[in-house]
C-alpha cells in the first residue's frame, strides 16, 4: 500500500441545499482523505451528511437544490468540481463504482439482469455507443460482437460475486431474485469497469444478518482482488469494526473524529463517538445500563452556533457554544478530533467522566 497519492481528497467541502424554508447548510467544512487500499467507514446518524459527502466525489448531488459553496474534491489528484459533464461521465463509468442501500429500487424491474448488466459493462468499458437505445442498433454486427463480449464479462463477474448459475439465471428479472442476490448483481455491475474507488452507501442495511455477513465477506475479498479503495457509508458500528481499516465519524455536516478503526474503537475521543459506541447494545451490555445520547440531531436550517454537538454534549464548556467551531486537533496514533477538550494537547479521561455523568434516570 503506497501512501503517495490519495485516491480521494476532500478539503473543507461546504454544500448548501436551498429549500423553500431557507438555506440548509448540509456540509460545513468536511475533510476526508482516502489512500489506495483504504476501506474507510463513514459513520453517523441520519441527516449528518454521510451520503452527500460520498456523492460529492462522483458529483451526483442533485443540483439544484444542492450547491457547492466552498472547498474542493479531488479524485486521483484532479478536482472534480472543474470537470465538464462529459469528463464526469467518463470518470463515473471507468473509475468509480457505486453500490446503494436498497437493491430493490436500483435495478430496473422491466429489464432482465442480462440487459442491465450488458449495458453497464458496455458503458464501463467505453462502448456506450453499442448500448441498445436506438431502433436498429442491434443489427450492426460489430455491436453484436461487443454485446456478446460484454455478456461474457457480465457472466464472469456474476460468477465472481457468488451469483449461482449465472449462465442461466442472468436471464432473470430482478423480482425473481432475493435481496442478497440483487445486491450481488449491483456489486458485480459496479466492478465492471475495474474502478479505483467503490462507494458503498449502506450496502447491507436492507439485508438480514446472515446475508449481511456474506456480503461483507465478499466486499473484503474483492478489495484485495481488485485493489479497490472503498468508501463505506453505514450507521452500523459493528460493520465498520469488522470491515474497515479507517473510520470517520460525522455529526451534522462535519467530520468530528477520524483515525484508524483500532484506535477509534478502543479509545474514542470525541464525546459523540463515545456516546455512539455506548448506545449500541452488545453481548456485554447489562440491562438498564445502555447509555443514551440525549436530545436529537440539530435542524440544519438553524444549526446551533459553535460545535453543533454542544446541546447534547455531557462535557460542554463555554468555548463550545460560540463560533468558530473547534478545528481538528491531532492526537497520538494519527487520530484527529474536532473538540475543544483537546485544545491544549491534553487528553482528558472522558471514559471515566462519562461513567459518572452518563445516564441519570433509571
Amino acid at each position, binding site marked *: 500500500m503506497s501512501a503517495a497519492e490519495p485516491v480521494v481528497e476532500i478539503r473543507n467541502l461546504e454544500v448548501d441545499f436551498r429549500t423553500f424554508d431557507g438555506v440548509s447548510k448540509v456540509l460545513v467544512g468536511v475533510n476526508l482523505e482516502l489512500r489506495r487500499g483504504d476501506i474507510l467507514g463513514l459513520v453517523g446518524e441520519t441527516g449528518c451528511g454521510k451520503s452527500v459527502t460520498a456523492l460529492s466525489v462522483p458529483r451526483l448531488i442533485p443540483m439544484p437544490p444542492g450547491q457547492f459553496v466552498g472547498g474542493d474534491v479531488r479524485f486521483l489528484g484532479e478536482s472534480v468540481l472543474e470537470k465538464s459533464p462529459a469528463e464526469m461521465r467518463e470518470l463515473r463509468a471507468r473509475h468509480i463504482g457505486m453500490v446503494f442501500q436498497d437493491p430493490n429500487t436500483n435495478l430496473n424491474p422491466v429489464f432482465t439482469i442480462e440487459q442491465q448488466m450488458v449495458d453497464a459493462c458496455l458503458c464501463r468499458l467505453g462502448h456506450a455507443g453499442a448500448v441498445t437505445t436506438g431502433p436498429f442498433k442491434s443489427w450492426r454486427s460489430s455491436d453484436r460482437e461487443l454485446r456478446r463480449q460484454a455478456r461474457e464479462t457480465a457472466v464472469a463477474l456474476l460468477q465472481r460475486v457468488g451469483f449461482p448459475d449465472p449462465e442461466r439465471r442472468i436471464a432473470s428479472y430482478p423480482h425473481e431474485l432475493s435481496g442478497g442476490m440483487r445486491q450481488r448483481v449491483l456489486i458485480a455491475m459496479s466492478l465492471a469497469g475495474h474502478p479505483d474507488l467503490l462507494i458503498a452507501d449502506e450496502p447491507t442495511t436492507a439485508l438480514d444478518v446472515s446475508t449481511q455477513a456474506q456480503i461483507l465477506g465478499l466486499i473484503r475479498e474483492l478489495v484485495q482482488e481488485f485493489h479497490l479503495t472503498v468508501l463505506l457509508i453505514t450507521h452500523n458500528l459493528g460493520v465498520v469494526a469488522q470491515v474497515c481499516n479507517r473510520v470517520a465519524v460525522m455529526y451534522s455536516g462535519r467530520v468530528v473524529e477520524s483515525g484508524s478503526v483500532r484506535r477509534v474503537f478502543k479509545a474514542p475521543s470525541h464525546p459523540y463517538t463515545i456516546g455512539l459506541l455506548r448506545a449500541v447494545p452488545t453481548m456485554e451490555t447489562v440491562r438498564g445500563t*445502555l447509555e443514551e445520547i440525549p436530545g436529537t440531531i440539530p435542524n440544519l436550517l438553524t444549526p446551533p452556533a459553535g460545535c453543533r454537538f454542544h446541546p447534547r454534549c455531557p462535557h460542554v464548556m463555554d468555548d463550545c457554544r460560540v463560533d468558530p467551531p473547534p478545528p481538528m486537533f491531532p492526537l497520538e496514533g494519527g487520530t484527529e478530533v474536532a473538540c475543544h477538550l483537546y485544545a491544549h494537547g491534553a487528553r482528558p479521561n472522558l471514559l471515566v467522566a462519562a461513567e459518572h455523568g452518563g445516564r441519570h434516570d433509571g
Partner: protein
Amino acid sequence: MAEALLEIRHVCKYFPIRGGLLKQNVGAVRAVDDVSLAIPAGTSYGLVGESGSGKTTLGKVVLRLSEPTSGEILFDGQDLAALDGRALQEQRARMQMIFQNPYSSLDPRKTVKSIVAEPLVIYGRARGKELDDRVRSLIATVGLRSEHLYRFPHEFSGGQRQRIGIARALALEPKLLILDEPTSALDVSVQSQILNLLLDLQQRLGLTYLFISHDLGVIRYICDHVGVMYLGRIVEQAPVEDIFSRPQHPYTQALLSAIPEPDPERAFQPGEIKGEIRALPSDYAGCRFAPRCPFVMDRCREVDPPLKETAPEHTVACHLF
C-alpha cells in the same frame, strides 16, 4: 414458571397458493407452523429470525389481525381464537401493537392529540376534560411535552414518532404489547432512548412484551426469553442468557456468529451458513434448515425434528440432540 399471560398452543397460519386453470389450492405457504410459546406476566419474550421466518405473521395472529388456521391463543386464560365480536374487541383493548415504521403507522392528517386520543374515543373510555388530561399524561409518560399535542406527525423525528406510537398503544392501559421491530428504523442514539423507555415503562406499568426483532443485541438487552424462528417454526427456545452463552441449534449458532460486533479486536468469522432463507415445497417433511445446515444428516431431510428439552427451559428442534 409464573402464570402465563399469553400462551400460544400449536398455532398454525397457512396461506393458500392458488394455481392452475381453476385457481384451486395447489399448496400452502406455512408461514407459522405449529408454534407454541408462553409468556409469563411482566416479562419479555423475544422472537428472532430473518425476514420470511414468520415472526410478524405470528404477531398478527396473536392479535387476530390475521386469523389462525388452527391452534389456541390463550390470553389471560381465555382462548382468543374462539372469541368474536364484542368479546374479542374487549380483549383486544388489553393488547396493543407497536409497529416498525413510525413514518407510516401514524395518520399524517391527524394531530398528535387526536392520534393518542383515538383509542380512548373508540372505546368510549373518556371524553371532554378527562380525555384531555389522559392524553396529556400519556404524552408525558413517553417523554414528550404538551406543546407537541397540536403538531402533526411530519413535524417530528423518527424517535419522537415512535414515542407517539407508544403513547397511543398505552392509551387503553394494555397488559401485553406486541412490538414489531420497534427500533429498526431508528438511529442508534435514538434506538437506545426508545429501548430504555420501553424497559422503564415495563417496570412502572407491569407490561408484558412480545418483542419481534432481527437484532440480537437489542433482543438480549430487552428480553427474558428468546425464541428463534426459521421458516415458520421455532427451532430453539431458551432464557436469554442460555441462548447467547450456549446456543445449540446450528441456525442459532450461525445467526450469532453473523453479527458484526463493534470491536475490531474480535475476529469476525461469518460464513458458516450458506445460501439464503427460501420457501420449501409444501410437501417437504424434513427439517426446514437442512438445505443450509453444515451438520446435515440423512435423517434431517426426511423427518422434521420435534422440540426437545436439553436443559431446564431450553428446547431445541434438531436431530443432533
